[in-house]
């Protein structure tokens, strides 16, 4: 996303543009700053005081762990997200390799079915999937959170694009040197598509970490609940009585995705935009 200013905005339009951007950005930043500020307020300052804390305290961040088993929720979220994203990447890598590098009967139909799964709304399939997970005995377990989501068609689609764009000469010379299809995948393709793999991993991570609907359906006890469900239950239990701790929880739950974003800022923006244009 290069930035070159192509329009020579006349002064009134330049001013309008600045105002529009200023208002848009403030409407995003102000509520979030208020959340952080409130999470740092001691209880007596929470209601009716200034927007920012006068004597900031980290007490709410300790209290939220006493009020709800947030540590357990984090463990469930972290572990299921890691397992799910790891599985999604391996499965998508193998499938994308098959779609991009081999010719076999039915390939185009199967690829269309994979893309079709990307288009199929979850709203359609949640009930039979729930019935099946219950039948398998995976209700309220990590298995129920992970297994039904292991296929990531968007990952297959993006990785296939990268493999198709991969220089043929490299693969040909690998084949001449006697590398079979597995060695070509591990030693030639994989090292070269690592940036793409990382970007897709981040995309899938944020998707999974922020998911609400499926964990809501498939978990019931603290031993399987994810952070999103946990913070929602905290909201129901407190109904604003303990705003400071609730906002501390909100900040903590949002931190992982924010941290990943700050770390890989540029690449994430580009991957999300290109996936958004296709997914």
């Amino acid at each position, binding site marked *: *996303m290069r930035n070159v*200013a*192509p*329009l020579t*905005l006349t002064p009134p339009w*330049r001013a309008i543009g600045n105002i*529009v*951007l200023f208002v*848009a*950005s403030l409407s*995003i930043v102000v*509520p979030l700053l*208020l*959340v952080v500020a409130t999470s740092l307020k001691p209880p007596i300052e929470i209601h009716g005081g200034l*927007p920012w804390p006068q004597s900031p305290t980290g007490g709410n961040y300790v209290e939220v762990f006493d009020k709800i088993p947030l540590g357990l929720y984090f463990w469930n979220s972290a572990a299921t997200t890691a397992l799910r994203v790891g599985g999604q990447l391996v499965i*998508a890598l*193998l499938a994308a390799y*098959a779609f991009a590098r*081999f*010719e076999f009967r039915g*390939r185009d139909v199967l690829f269309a079915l*994979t*893309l079709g*799964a990307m*288009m*199929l*709304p*979850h*709203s*359609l*399939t*949640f*009930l*039979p*999937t*729930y019935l*099946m997970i219950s039948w398998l005995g995976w209700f309220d377990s990590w298995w129920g959170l992970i297994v*039904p989501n292991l*296929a990531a068609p968007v990952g297959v689609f993006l990785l296939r694009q990268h493999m*198709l764009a991969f220089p*043929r000469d490299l693969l040909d010379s690998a084949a001449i040197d006697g590398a079979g*299809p597995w060695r070509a995948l591990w030693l030639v393709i994989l090292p070269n598509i690592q940036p793409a793999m990382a970007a897709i991993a981040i995309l899938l991570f*944020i998707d999974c*970490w922020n*998911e*609400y609907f499926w964990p809501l359906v498939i978990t019931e006890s603290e031993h399987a609940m994810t952070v999103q469900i946990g*913070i*929602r239950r905290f909201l129901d239990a407190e109904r*604003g009585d303990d*705003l400071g701790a*609730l906002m501390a929880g909100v900040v903590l739950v*949002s931190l992982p995705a924010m941290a990943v974003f700050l770390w890989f*800022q540029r690449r994430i*923006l580009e991957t*999300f*935009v*290109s996936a*958004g*244009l*296709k997914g």
Partner: protein
Amino acid sequence: MSASIALPAAATLARPRARRRAGNLLPWLLLSPLLLLLAAFTYWPLLHTIYLSVVDVRLFQPDRFVGLDNFTGLFRSPSFAAASWNTVIYIALSLPLKVLLPIPIAVFVWCAGARMASLHRSILFVPTLLSFVVVSIVWIWMLNPVMGMVQSGLRPLGLQMPALLSDAATAIHAIIGISAWKVIGFNALLYLAGLASIPRELIESMRLDGASDWRITRSLLLPLLSPTIYFVAITSVLFTVQQVFTPINIMTGGGPSNATTNLFYLAYEMAFESFNIGFASATALLLFVGLGALAALKAWLLGRRVHYA
């Protein structure tokens, strides 16, 4: 970067001949995990939903075929009528906010200096990173008429914040606004990517011919942006129907008196609160017909753009 450049033309490259023979079984081996998962958790549920929509599921007894009874029952139910109407309202009122509003934002970011543009881009992206649970909780608190943040701002002015979320007339608009807040920035970034792919020479030559900014925007930028606009519109419809589930569930529970429920939320409630599997499946199927048509349109647009590239 551009939407179309990312889809390389390499699809037409011939594959190595030697691999064709060796790869008789190997591609199937590579694909088997994906295919098994898609079969089990996407395509089988699709067929099962169709089955469940035409039977009466009974405990400890075989399912009874009831034909279209679930559908006719749905059409007679007042909550289905409310949910259908709300689904239309959600879509109709979301589209201008989610599709049109981001266009000027994107154009202004595009025209801003490099440093400002990069700052605004990062800020616009932040709501995409937040979960809808977090967004819902933050806005419940902001909009709370007694101790909300907006109310604290209004109080010194002698104004009173209305109870937007518990008023049947305004609750749906509050949710529409919040779900727009979550995606406007991201859609602006999509448009920005579209703008960045417009050849500079076209703009320069129009300028040499004496065209004004407005003229360039109207006759060049908007037409070249139109594939992205269609695309964002369709994505926004699909997104709106499914993603408002979370704010509905957290902020209003579909109420007050069905004022904010939509078809997806209704299907969920029927399945897990009133345990009416037949009605839930019939609702999901009806939703699917509508959304499936849109998804097909989106795939068709995507295919067209590949040819343009």
